[in-house]
């Protein structure tokens, strides 16, 4: 099989399988006629009515803003804290127990205190909440990435008189970038999850809030429309991230292929 045929088939399979599942869903729901599982056609009509675009501004935009802000803050903080910790054995010794304690905390456990401490169920509380939990994958991956940098590279830079900051900028940051990126990808998916949790339990708008309202009013079509939207949101954000990574870390793919590592 030629490479071209193979990739055509792969793309076809990627599209055909979900389409087949959706068709089965439609056939089954028409047959079952259950109020819990509305027909695919009903869900799609609901999806179009809600999200394209009458309620887009009211509920989707706030959720997206929270995800991106929370994720962005987590990424910046995670890298800024991870680099010094990756470079300092003493820093890690002091910080790791605290990091391990908080990173294993289930998000709902901190929801009440976040509402009380930040005196609100507004955007600040939700962005802070998302940022807090998204911090850990970036932070831990940055620490690991920095520790994994070849000492020969650092020695080379030192021998050429690059100071500490120059070494961080020219060696440490680009060297740890592939692993930082892996951590950011995990955080991005996590941001979607935390967004739904935070909005479901403490919000007056957003996609998670729509879930809550449709549950309370026993409306299954909007609930399914929201579920589909959340799934698509996660899928598309991940896709965008992978495209960006392919562009900015192109060297890493080539290097891995060349060295077999």
């Amino acid at each position, binding site marked *: 099989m030629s490479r071209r045929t193979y990739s055509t088939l792969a793309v076809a399979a990627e599209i055909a399988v979900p389409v087949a599942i959706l068709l089965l869903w439609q056939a089954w729901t028409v047959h079952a006629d259950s109020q819990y599982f509305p027909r695919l056609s009903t869900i799609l009509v609901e999806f179009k009515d809600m999200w394209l675009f009458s309620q887009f501004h009211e509920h989707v935009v706030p959720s997206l803003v929270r995800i991106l802000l929370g994720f962005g803050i987590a990424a910046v903080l995670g890298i800024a804290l991870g680099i010094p910790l990756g470079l300092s054995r003493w820093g890690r010794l002091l910080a790791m127990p605290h990091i391990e304690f908080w990173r294993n905390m289930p998000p709902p456990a901190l929801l009440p205190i976040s509402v009380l401490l930040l005196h609100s169920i507004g955007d600040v509380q939700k962005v802070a909440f998302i940022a807090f939990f998204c911090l850990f994958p970036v932070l831990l991956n940055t620490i690991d990435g920095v520790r994994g940098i*070849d000492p*020969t*590279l650092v*020695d*080379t*830079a*030192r*021998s*050429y*008189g*690059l*100071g500490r900051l*120059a070494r961080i900028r*020219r*060696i440490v940051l*680009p*060297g740890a*970038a592939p692993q930082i990126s892996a951590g950011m990808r995990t955080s991005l998916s996590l941001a979607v999850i935390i967004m739904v949790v935070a909005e479901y339990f403490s919000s007056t708008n957003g996609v998670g809030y729509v879930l809550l309202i449709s549950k309370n009013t026993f409306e299954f079509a909007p609930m399914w429309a929201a579920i589909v939207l959340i799934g698509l949101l996660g899928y598309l954000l991940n896709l965008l991230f992978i495209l960006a990574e392919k562009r900015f870390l192109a*060297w*890493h793919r*080539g*290097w891995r292929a*060349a*060295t077999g590592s």
Partner: protein
Amino acid sequence: MLEIKGLGKTYGEGAKATHAIGDVSLTVEAGEFACVVGPSGCGKTTLLKCVAGLMKPSRGEVLLRGKRVTGPPDELALVFQEYSRSLLPWASVRNNVLLPLRHKSVPGGDKKRLVEESLDAVGLTRFIDHYPWQLSGGMQQRVAIARALAYQPSMLLMDEPFASVDAQTRGDLEDLILRVRDEYGITILFVTHDIDESVYLGDRVIVLTHAPTHVKEIVGVPLPRQRDQLATKELPEFAHLRAHVYRLIKREQEATPEPDPAGLVSV
């Protein structure tokens, strides 16, 4: 140019201490090509790192133009054995060579010229926009040499730079470095475990003992300055010198009381 005075390095303390370098004293004159050879595990890399200011010696001192080395000196460039680990895989050949110039006070136009000239000197102009991992091992080491040249050092330290390339490439690189030495008028301290290489390249060969390392003998190489892979190696003097250095090291290896000191000294 370079003076090493009573240099010693001990790793660890008390009963567990490993005496890598006992007491090494030597000088390298300006413009000289000095080769350092010794049995495996004799602390050659440790010695070089102390000279490069990357490692603090336990005893003694290193003087470069009479100035004590306490950190990496400006006029010194280091070429490692592991080219694949000393080149930045995320940077093009051009940016790799530019690395040491980025934070040096050289006008921007001069930086570009230095990068291009030094890549020209090692014959890699065509590959300036490649990534290092797209090149063969020998070419990667030439990038590392070009980077060292662009830094405009008065002295080049080389740590077994040709140990991981095939024999044919090694011969080419040896001749390249001799040519570069003449063109740039650079002083070279060259560590190797290859006896032929040390005699072929060096004006003098410094033979070290096993750890704790001392200087066993300094062998002058009175071969014609213009070296040639075939003609030079056919000279009877070359054979004599090679055999002499070989015997010194062989005797040293037989006298080795213990294997590598805990693997601490990489050669």
